[in-house]
């Protein structure tokens, strides 16, 4: 019985595309489970829905929810699309789904145990040998490894879609490193924040208990039943497609996010490298694929895993979730045999139906497949990505023949499936509801003896109206997944990502050294970016003034400033080499390149790029506000790049805006992370870089002696690039003199921008770094102490002394050179002592096998 508002909602819904729909039945009646949601939607109206959708898009972007797509023209950090209209299932149906998923998880668990155990399924002829042995996820190195956990399969994700018969069908299983839980969590958080009206009068089941149990599961996995096991989340790194989720889960659960480089196997145990020492790890939640987990025993070209890990697993010194080797279950060859296996183990049929599938390793099935090829979908048993799925109805003669040939050359590697038309659900697209195919990913975890299913999950929507295939890899849309119940539910948990059972990193000693390194470099890049931007802005301002004042000294001072730019940024030849005529004659061109050219070493663009990299690696530490500021810098930058309008005025304006944001960003860092979380390393990096740049500027501008008027102009430029002109005027109330400038920017003990102050601050912070070995002298602490000792005892009168030629302040230059060396030594020593990544993992014999 369609109601009035719903008719409006569904106007033109099926105009050009008719399909089995979740909401609108073929007789145009409405699925009653959706009634309340539709009422809520129509109460709000299309216009407001559009605004809500915009807000959700904004929030997802603000929160930095991304899904990386390799080689994506939109850049690697593509934002995650959440459709404003959720997907829902009533509790009554959900109970059946839950039962089916639980059965399937139990079954896959037994299959996994059997494959790496006694292989009874193969011995008893239930499962053909080739389905396991020809699957590249079957890792012979994992044979006969026994685990302490009751279940071997600990996390299981299943993709379901509704078939024309109204039942939910199993499309896929994910067992290696299932993704999507974090996105599901974030979807619920964002939708309830932006669109609470949608939930009006509807009871939606919450997943907070599930995540509590998930955490408990990780704790329970620890070998030897440790009470407080050390748990880490292993990510392939910021380039991985679901890196956002890795960082999100790390932040949500409160465990360190690590890469293979942070871990090391020694003395039969697994350790995480921290600032102070090696810390034993008991449980790894892995997001790295099986074969990359151990370059010693598995793929030798992997840099994502830990050499020797598998042996530690074998000796029950560490638990990996899911166990290495679970990928063998991501196997479409299993599908035709699942019902038999289910009967073998449980003496019952599968609850959830699967798509009719034929394994080509059998004669009869192979013949059927070859005779009906054009109406089937063909897959490799061990490849489920879109590139390896053949929708035969769309293939031409030539491609079909090629496929036939491939199948015949190794039939056991192929499975064919009936094509099935799955249901659509309304999605809000371009201001109206549109039917789009949907696929639901549902998650189950082992909870001691039983599997627990997350109420809801992740719903993905086909990217185009008529697309059959739903995949994130091509960048799709997602939906919040509601299990609605007739019982009232408790209020929403706040899912903000820093509200969790986080076990704070108790001590700076425990900071993973890779994180420490990234923090140090974030500080250095940020410091460098700020000083460089200010310096370039000052030069641009001077150029602008020259338009109005073309006196001789002005031109000469500009030339000096141009040359100093090249020196400070180390972007030779630039303005300094003999053939620098071009640059001097067209300084704007050179400066534009210094600002915008990200392929040029030392350019501002490149500093920002390096900063981006270290920023992404630290994703789990940053706050949302920081993300927002960071994102606005990126937008500002790309917009400016697109416009290609490079004049003195526009460049100055760009730098102005970026500088403001960089300063805001720096303020946020200080309030967002604790010193013990690594802020100390960031400070050391930042101060060290600023001090180094300070020294470089002084050497470039204060060492040579100029005539009175020129000197004035140079000093003024120097102070203005240093943002110290006002302080100078306030402190000295006098004409600019070299003596006072040196007093202010080098020797002042109280002024935060003076070198003395900076060195003192670095020394204080470096002294707080842990001592790794009491017997070894700590080079970084010594170097910075020496630098501070030198600057503390300097006298301005000595520094301004001129050499014999009366053109250079030699003493000043020598002192600055020495300080500069000590700062570099400090920085190098910090890397050597604390970051320990100098050594690259390599193979004993470089084999370069063409690995599949």
């Amino acid at each position, binding site marked *: 019985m369609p109601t009035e508002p719903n008719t409006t909602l569904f106007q033109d819904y099926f105009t050009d595309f008719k399909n089995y729909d979740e909401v609108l039945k073929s007789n145009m009646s409405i699925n009653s489970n959706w009634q309340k949601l539709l009422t809520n939607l129509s109460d709000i109206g299309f216009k407001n829905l559009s605004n809500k959708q915009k807000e959700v898009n904004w929030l997802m972007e603000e929160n930095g929810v991304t899904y990386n797509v390799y080689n994506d023209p939109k850049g690697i950090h593509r934002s995650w699309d959440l459709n404003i209209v959720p997907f829902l299932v009533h509790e009554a149906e959900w109970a059946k789904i839950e039962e089916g998923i639980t059965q399937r998880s139990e079954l896959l668990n037994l299959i996994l145990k059997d494959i790496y155990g006694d292989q009874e399924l193969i011995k008893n002829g239930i499962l053909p040998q080739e389905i396991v*042995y020809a699957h590249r996820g079957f890792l012979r*190195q994992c044979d006969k490894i026994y685990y302490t956990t009751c279940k071997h399969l600990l996390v299981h994700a299943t993709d379901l879609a509704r078939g024309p018969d109204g039942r939910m069908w199993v499309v896929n299983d994910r067992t290696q490193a299932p993704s999507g839980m974090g996105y599901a969590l974030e979807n619920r958080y964002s939708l309830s924040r932006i669109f609470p009206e949608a939930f009006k009068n509807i009871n939606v089941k919450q997943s907070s208990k599930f995540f509590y149990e998930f955490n408990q599961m990780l704790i329970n996995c620890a070998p030897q039943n440790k009470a407080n096991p050390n748990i880490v989340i292993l990510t392939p790194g910021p380039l991985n497609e679901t890196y956002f989720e890795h960082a999100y889960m790390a932040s949500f659960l409160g465990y360190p996010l690590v890469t293979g480089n942070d871990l090391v196997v*020694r003395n039969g145990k697994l350790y995480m490298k921290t600032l102070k020492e090696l810390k034993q790890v008991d449980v790894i939640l892995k997001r790295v694929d099986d074969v990359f987990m151990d370059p010693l025993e598995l793929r030798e070209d992997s840099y994502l895993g830990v050499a*020797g890990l598998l042996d530690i697993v074998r000796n029950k010194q560490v638990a990996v979730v899911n166990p290495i080797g679970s990928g063998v279950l991501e196997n479409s060859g299993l599908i035709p045999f699942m019902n038999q296996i289910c009967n073998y183990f449980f003496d019952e049929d599968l609850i959830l139906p699967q798509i009719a599938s034929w394994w080509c390793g059998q004669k009869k099935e192979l013949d059927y497949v070859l005779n009906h090829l054009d109406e089937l979908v063909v897959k490799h048993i061990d490849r489920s990505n879109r590139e390896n799925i053949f929708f035969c109805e769309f293939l031409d003669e030539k491609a079909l023949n090629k496929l036939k040939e491939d199948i015949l050359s190794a039939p056991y590697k192929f499975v064919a499936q009936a094509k099935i038309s799955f249901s659509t659900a309304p999605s809000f697209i371009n201001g109206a509801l549109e039917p789009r195919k949907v696929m639901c990913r549902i998650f189950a975890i082992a909870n001691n003896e039983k599997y627990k299913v997350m109420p809801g999950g992740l719903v993905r929507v086909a990217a185009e109206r008529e697309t059959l295939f739903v995949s994130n890899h091509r960048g799709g849309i997602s939906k919040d997944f509601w299990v609605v119940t007739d019982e009232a539910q408790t209020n929403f948990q706040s899912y903000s990502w820093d509200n969790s059972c986080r076990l704070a990193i108790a001590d700076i000693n425990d900071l993973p050294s890779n994180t420490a390194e990234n923090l140090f470099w974030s500080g250095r890049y940020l410091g460098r970016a700020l000083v460089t931007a200010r310096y370039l802005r000052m030069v641009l301002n001077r150029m602008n003034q020259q338009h109005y004042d073309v006196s001789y000294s002005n031109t000469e001072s500009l030339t000096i400033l141009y040359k100093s730019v090249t020196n400070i940024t180390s972007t030779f030849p630039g303005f300094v080499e003999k053939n620098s005529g071009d640059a001097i004659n067209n300084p704007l061109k050179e400066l534009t390149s210094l600002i915008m050219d990200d392929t040029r070493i030392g350019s501002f663009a490149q500093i920002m790029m390096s900063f981006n990299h270290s920023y992404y690696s630290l994703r789990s530490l940053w706050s949302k506000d920081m993300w927002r500021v960071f994102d606005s810098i990126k937008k500002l930058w790309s917009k400016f790049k697109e416009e290609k309008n490079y004049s003195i005025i526009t460049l100055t304006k760009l730098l102005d805006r970026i500088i403001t944001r960089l300063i805001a960003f720096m303020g946020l860092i200080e309030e967002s992370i604790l010193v013990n979380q690594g802020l100390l390393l960031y400070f050391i990096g930042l101060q060290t870089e600023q001090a180094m740049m300070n020294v470089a500027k002084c050497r470039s501008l204060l060492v040579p002696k100029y005539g009175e008027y020129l000197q004035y102009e140079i000093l003024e430029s120097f102070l203005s690039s240093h943002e110290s002109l006002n302080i100078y005027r306030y402190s000295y109330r006098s004409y600019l003199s070299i003596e006072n400038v040196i007093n202010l920017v080098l020797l002042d003990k109280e002024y935060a921008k003076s070198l003395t102050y900076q060195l003192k601050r670095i020394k204080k912070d470096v002294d707080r770094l842990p001592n790794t070995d009491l017997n070894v002298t700590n080079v970084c602490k010594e170097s910075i102490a020496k630098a501070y000792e030198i600057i503390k005892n300097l006298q301005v009168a000595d520094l301004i002394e001129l050499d014999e030629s009366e053109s250079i302040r030699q003493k000043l230059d020598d002192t600055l050179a020495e300080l500069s060396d000590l700062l570099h030594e400090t920085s190098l020593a910090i890397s050597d002592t604390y970051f320990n990544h100098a050594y690259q993992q*390599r*193979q*004993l*014999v470089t084999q370069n096998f063409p690995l599949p």
Partner: protein
Amino acid sequence: MTTYQLIHTTTYNYENGLTFCHNLATLKPKTILGQTLLDYNLQISPRPIEISDKTDFFGNNITRFSIQELHTELKVTAKSKIIRDFSLIPDINTNVLAKQITLTESIAYFKQTKPDLISIKQFILESILIAKITPEIKAYAEVSFKPNRSVFEASFELMQRIFNDFEFNTKATNVATPIEDVIKRKKGVCQDFAQIAIACVRSVGLPARYVSGYIETLPPPGKEKLIGSDASHAWFSVYIPQHGWVDFDPTNNHIPRNQHIVLAHGRDYYDVPPLKGVIYSTGRNKMNVSVDLRPIGN
């Protein structure tokens, strides 16, 4: 029957030295029918902080060890004493039934689902280094393998053809040269010949495995044998129903007898490299291998 002393020494020199490495060694000869390992001793310098042995999926002994001290040279010496008596290995020439079994019969035999066949049938499937069996390789195989021809005869002929058609050339290939290149260039070393043969046998649907081992080389007449003049060797093995695995050496064109020592079995070289590892270092390293296999007493 011959008793051998085998010394296999591998030395790595690291330009910049290193303080930490994990390694796997497959250096312990198997005890199988016709071959008994009497004595085995693995010396590693510097001394590993950890060392353990395990049996891999294919029944080979693997030693895993880690070193945690600064060193510029790693030296691994495996010393074995082995009795080799090929007369204990069932001779296919005396097994008339097995010798005559045809390709068609053989394929039908492997279609059965029997628990005992699992470990044999896995060698029909492709493996890491023998993954791309090209039509060219299959065509080469089909010259010898015919539906109604004896599998033994065909395998023997395949061995002979590889010996005649392929040039032994240590410069032509390295461990990473793919089989599809080897079949085109028809040059290589024992490992390439073994892998080509295995690819051929698998291309017609039969199980074939890689045998890694050693062969005794004889000095020119009247000359003293030089120490360390031997080398690692490799050949292939075909499973013949009603009989078992039969080894063929395509590099020397005969069925191994007492001069061959079996080290390990695998699907291809990838499963059984004598020594591999992960090191943490910069700079180059240099490897030197010496093998000395000589009969003792008797």
